[in-house]
């Protein structure tokens, strides 16, 4: 009869300890809420699996796992999570609605800043001339094909500002409720088109 406790060698003890540590980290990744903490946990998870690969006589796989799993994948996660809650605004009006006196003090900027702070978004205002020229009269196509969430333009006849965005975006409904009290701001929502027809 084999005594399982005394017959285990040191490497088996290490393997069992690492496997229980792996299960612990996996549970922590599943139950955690904060994405920043999960990135650190993912990196340590890859490190523990790499040591288990070495115990399984596969050092070549372990090298690949250390390089990719605990260096490149956390980097990809950091980039995507920092860009995830971004609210991109394309400023086509180019007057004191957003920028007045070369500073972000326009009425529209204060409105958008309050909106993005309320929903924990990262406001990113651009007036890229390439995008502005590309979207001349084709704002719906610009909204559909790029990541631009909101287009600010000015109606030359009535002088009111028009905010255009996708109807599928939940944030547009919230922005519409927020700008209900302003007389000179109008919100236009583009419906999704069915390209099959």
């Amino acid at each position, binding site marked *: 009869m084999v005594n399982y406790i005394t017959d285990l060698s040191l490497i088996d003890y290490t393997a069992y300890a690492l496997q229980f540590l792996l299960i612990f980290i996996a549970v922590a990744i599943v139950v955690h809420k904060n994405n920043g903490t999960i990135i650190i946990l993912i990196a340590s998870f890859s490190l523990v699996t790499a040591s288990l690969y070495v115990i*399984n006589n596969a050092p070549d796989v372990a090298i690949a796992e250390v390089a990719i799993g605990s260096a490149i994948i956390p980097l990809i*996660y950091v980039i995507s999570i920092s860009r995830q809650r971004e609210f991109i605004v394309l400023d086509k009006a180019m007057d004191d609605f957003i920028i007045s006196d070369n500073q972000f003090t326009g009425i529209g900027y204060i409105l958008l800043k309050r909106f993005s702070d309320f929903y924990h978004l990262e406001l990113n205002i651009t007036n890229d001339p390439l995008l502005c020229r590309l979207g001349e009269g084709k704002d719906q196509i610009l909204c559909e094909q790029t990541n631009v969430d909101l287009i600010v333009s000015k109606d030359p006849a009535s002088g009111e500002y028009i905010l255009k965005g996708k109807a599928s975006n939940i944030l547009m409904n919230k922005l519409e409720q927020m700008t209900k009290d302003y007389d000179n701001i109008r919100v236009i929502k583009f419906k999704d088109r069915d390209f099959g027809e």
Partner: protein
Amino acid sequence: MNPILTFLVVLIGFYGLSTSDNVIKSVFSVTIIESGVILLFLNLGNFEGGAIPILSEGVTQIVDPLPQALMITTIVIGSTVTALSLMLCIKVFHHYGTVEWKEVLSREDVKS
């Protein structure tokens, strides 16, 4: 190495995949499942007393190198799948304005 403990990691990944409320949490769970499956495959080719599959003098018994070659491919492809799904997460945020599964699936245009 105990295969049951390794399979437990795969099951934890499936649990996270089915209960996650966030699109990014699902991608994390896929990463966990992938690592567990790699460990299971490496455990298949490994046996007691086998050496690292590098042939030199005095080495008679080596572990099976075929699962190792397959699993290197899995790691590389898994990283590209992760990058692609995170890109799709950003696209989902810009289209629906949220990354919560419940809010995305409660939209009327998704239901139909």
